[in-house]
């Protein structure tokens, strides 16, 4: 029984060269926009203390709830006279820390566990799968909020709570990919080469599951950023006076009628950040490892 080529338009090979990927990415304007947004947000987070026009924690009771554009405050001021633009900029740090860091923390724990479950099967897989199923039965936000409440309000605890909530999803992906890949002939060849399991996991399996993990990461981060905003909205994240977008939203609630800009700008910041990651992630998914016929 010959394995003859499948019928499909001439498609790119399973692993595309970096140059090809870059070219394909550039042809997707939305993805490029997303990337720009991500870069912008990251830069703001890194440089915030230096580029912010005002001290984000400095209150000025003479300039309370000023509309945007007045008195040198580009985006206006909040209920204690702090410059909104500066607070938004510094707030980026909290969001990205909780959002992005939590995702990477989840990866570091989830990937080895998932890979072990998928490769060794047996008891490890049974335990890991059941635990993952149980944890996944909780909606992500509820789990994060619950954990953060238990751990107590702080940036670190919020990050931990978000990380734990993301672990099961990554475990599933890592496990699923390894289950598929371990039957590949190059893995079998490695066994015949005399390679021990740890070498196979590290050199053959891990590099080949990176792509789906990367893609999932770009999807998880926006979710985590929103999660971070929710937590700080509920007062479970960074504590005042450190700015965070969620906290700002929470403070702005009672002023929605009188000073709508106070609530609008943090909301817009959250939206832009998550949208940028989403667009970038979409583009990345299209560009990485195009499978035939998909």
């Amino acid at each position, binding site marked *: *029984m*010959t394995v*003859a*080529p499948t*019928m*499909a*338009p*001439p*498609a*790119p090979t399973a692993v595309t060269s970096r140059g*090809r990927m870059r*070219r*394909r990415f550039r*042809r997707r304007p939305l993805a490029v926009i997303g990337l720009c947004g991500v870069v912008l947000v990251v830069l703001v987070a890194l440089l915030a203390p230096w580029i912010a026009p005002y001290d984000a924690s400095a209150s000025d009771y003479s300039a309370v709830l000023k509309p945007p554009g007045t008195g040198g405050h580009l985006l206006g001021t909040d209920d204690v006279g702090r410059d909104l633009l500066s607070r938004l900029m510094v707030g980026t740090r909290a969001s990205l820390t909780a959002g992005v860091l939590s995702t990477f923390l989840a990866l570091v724990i989830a990937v080895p566990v998932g890979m072990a479950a998928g490769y060794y099967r047996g008891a490890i897989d049974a335990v890991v799968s059941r635990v993952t199923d149980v944890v996944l039965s909780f909606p992500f936000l509820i789990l994060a909020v619950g954990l953060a409440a238990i751990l107590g309000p702080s940036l670190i605890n919020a990050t931990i709570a978000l990380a734990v909530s993301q672990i099961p999803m990554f475990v599933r992906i890592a496990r699923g990919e390894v289950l598929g890949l371990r039957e590949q002939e190059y893995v079998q060849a490695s066994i015949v080469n005399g390679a021990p399991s740890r070498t196979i996991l590290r050199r053959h399996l891990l590099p080949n599951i990176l792509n789906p993990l990367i893609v999932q990461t770009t999807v998880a981060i926006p979710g985590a950023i929103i999660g971070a905003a929710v937590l700080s909205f509920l007062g479970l994240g960074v504590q005042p006076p450190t700015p965070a977008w969620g906290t700002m939203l929470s403070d702005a609630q009672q002023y929605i009628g009188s000073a709508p800009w106070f609530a609008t700008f943090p909301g817009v910041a959250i939206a832009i950040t998550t949208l940028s990651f989403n667009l970038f992630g979409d583009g990345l998914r299209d560009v990485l490892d195009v499978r035939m016929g998909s």
Partner: protein
Amino acid sequence: MSTPTSTRLAVEDLHVRFDSDDGTVLAVNGVSFDVGEGEVLALVGESGCGKSMTAMALMGLLPPTATRSGSIRLAGRELTGLRQREMRELRGREISMIFQEPMTSLNPVYTVGYLVAEVLRRHEGLSRRAAKERAVELLELVRIPAPRQRVDEYPHQMSGGMRQRVMIAMAVACNPKVLLADEPTTALDVTIQAQILDIMRDLREKLGTSVVIITHDLGVVADIADRVVVMYAGHVVETGVVDDVFARPQHPYTIGLLGSVPRPDLAPTSASDRLTEIPGIVPTLRQPPHECVFAPRCPRADDECRRDMPALVETAPGQRAACVHPGPVPERAGAAS
């Protein structure tokens, strides 16, 4: 090529082009051939030669990224200008196709009886009961044992060979003029392949269907085809009656192909014999060639070959080849001796 029978399918100057992120690919370049009534024509070539794309172009099943040009006449009727709706009426009724993978070509949620009957209901407007009766008859025609029971079975309950027969039954249900078979036996065991080829031969006799069989297996071609079209890099490089092409291959590529297959029936089984190798790989054409497409791999290539892609011309009675140095290799007594 004069044939006493009428021409069922006439393809002229067919071109298929793909435009994708990675550039343009010229999959089919100026392919022309015709198929007579009740004739079996084999499209032979290796992967990337464009034979499958040709079939998809004939059926109007090319993906949206493809551009097609040229003429396709089915019993005199031009297909290229037809709208999707009109093409859908023809597909399954006048021209049908069977594919390589019997495992994935049948919808697993329907019984095989339903799948066959559906073709009949759609194209011939039969009632449900009449269609089912006819479906049983068709299953019997393709030699499925106990057809009345099996008509209610699901594809996953059947073996690969059986599924392929179901596909054939669906394809000939409305007695189409032309049946396209894209590598119909490649995924099957050799004894099952023999059964399927036998069935196809039978059908050709009973129903008079013209068949275009696409394959890379020269044994299958020798077994079932009347005429052969050899393709390379989207071009037709040789055509002729099957006996002639095998006995006196004209194009160096055909000669190479024939020589690359081990021949247990020939020469003493001396271990010093080697198979003919064709160095290099099949090219993917991205622009029209300004030399013979096979020149980079051809043992006979010279400056004349690199001037332009040779046209398909008659190089021996009844045989055509696109080569400026055609003809069998002098030292070899051809493929059959």
